[in-house]
């Protein structure tokens, strides 16, 4: 049963991924990406990391996709056809990517993974939250703090990049 679900999910992921990198309407591409993300979230559900799946849905599907859509709207790109790269280019890149994935897959499949260790960590939200805030072994408070700085920096960066024009126009 789970197996079938997995195959369906992977079909969704791969299929929509391809669609999203080939579609000539950008908005559609965004939507396809949304499906991919949802597929990934589904996969997280499947392996039992519900919290992660939730984050995937909220931040990705909820946040980033919206961001994309907004920007697309902002730059009036909804319905005009993107011109695609030349066939030769696509062919070359495609073959290269196939080659690359072939190499990677061959390496992966030729590798024998150790047997999974018994027992598994509790994955309910509370424990994850504790882990996120504990500073001992397996505690993630430091990365948590760092990511806040990162976000702050990125916000400021985004601000200065976009704030430039108006003020400078005023000054010039």
């Amino acid at each position, binding site marked *: 049963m789970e197996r079938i679900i997995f195959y369906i999910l992977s079909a969704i992921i791969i299929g929509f991924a391809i669609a999203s990198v080939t579609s000539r309407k950008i908005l559609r591409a965004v939507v396809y990406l949304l499906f991919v993300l949802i597929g990934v979230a589904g996969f997280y559900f499947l392996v039992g990391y519900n919290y992660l799946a939730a984050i995937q849905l909220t931040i990705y599907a909820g946040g*980033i996709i919206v961001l994309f859509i907004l920007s697309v709207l902002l730059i009036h790109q909804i319905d005009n056809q*993107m011109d695609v790269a030349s066939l030769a*280019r696509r062919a070359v890149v495609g073959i290269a990517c196939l080659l690359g994935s072939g190499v990677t897959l061959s390496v992966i499949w030729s590798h024998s993974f150790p047997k999974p260790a018994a027992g598994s960590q509790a994955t309910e939200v509370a424990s994850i939250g504790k882990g996120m805030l504990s500073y001992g072994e*397996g505690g993630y408070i430091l990365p948590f703090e760092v990511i806040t700085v990162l976000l702050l920096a990125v916000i400021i960066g985004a601000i200065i990049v976009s704030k430039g024009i108006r003020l400078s126009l005023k000054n010039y």
Partner: protein
Amino acid sequence: MPAGVSLYEILTVSTLLFFIGVYGFVTRTNLISILLSIELILNAAAINFVAVNKYLYPDMLQGVYFSVFIIAVAAAETALAISIIINLYRLVTSVEVKETETMKY
């Protein structure tokens, strides 16, 4: 873990996803769609972490936490990238890749 689904298959999916992303990154002519491809790549990595964590080292959640941070960083990255792209759009009213080829050689 899901019955009958081996780690190999999951890694296969993620690998394919990764290279599809690369393909998109290289072939798309529009900056925003390049960003989309990047999301694919990041997701591929995230899937790997989760799968490995689940299948091999389920006693600790390193992979899961890693994926969480990946997602967060991805969001930040995208936001910043989009702001720069929009700035470019305000300068040249286009988000085509070919607008970003003035500096070369």
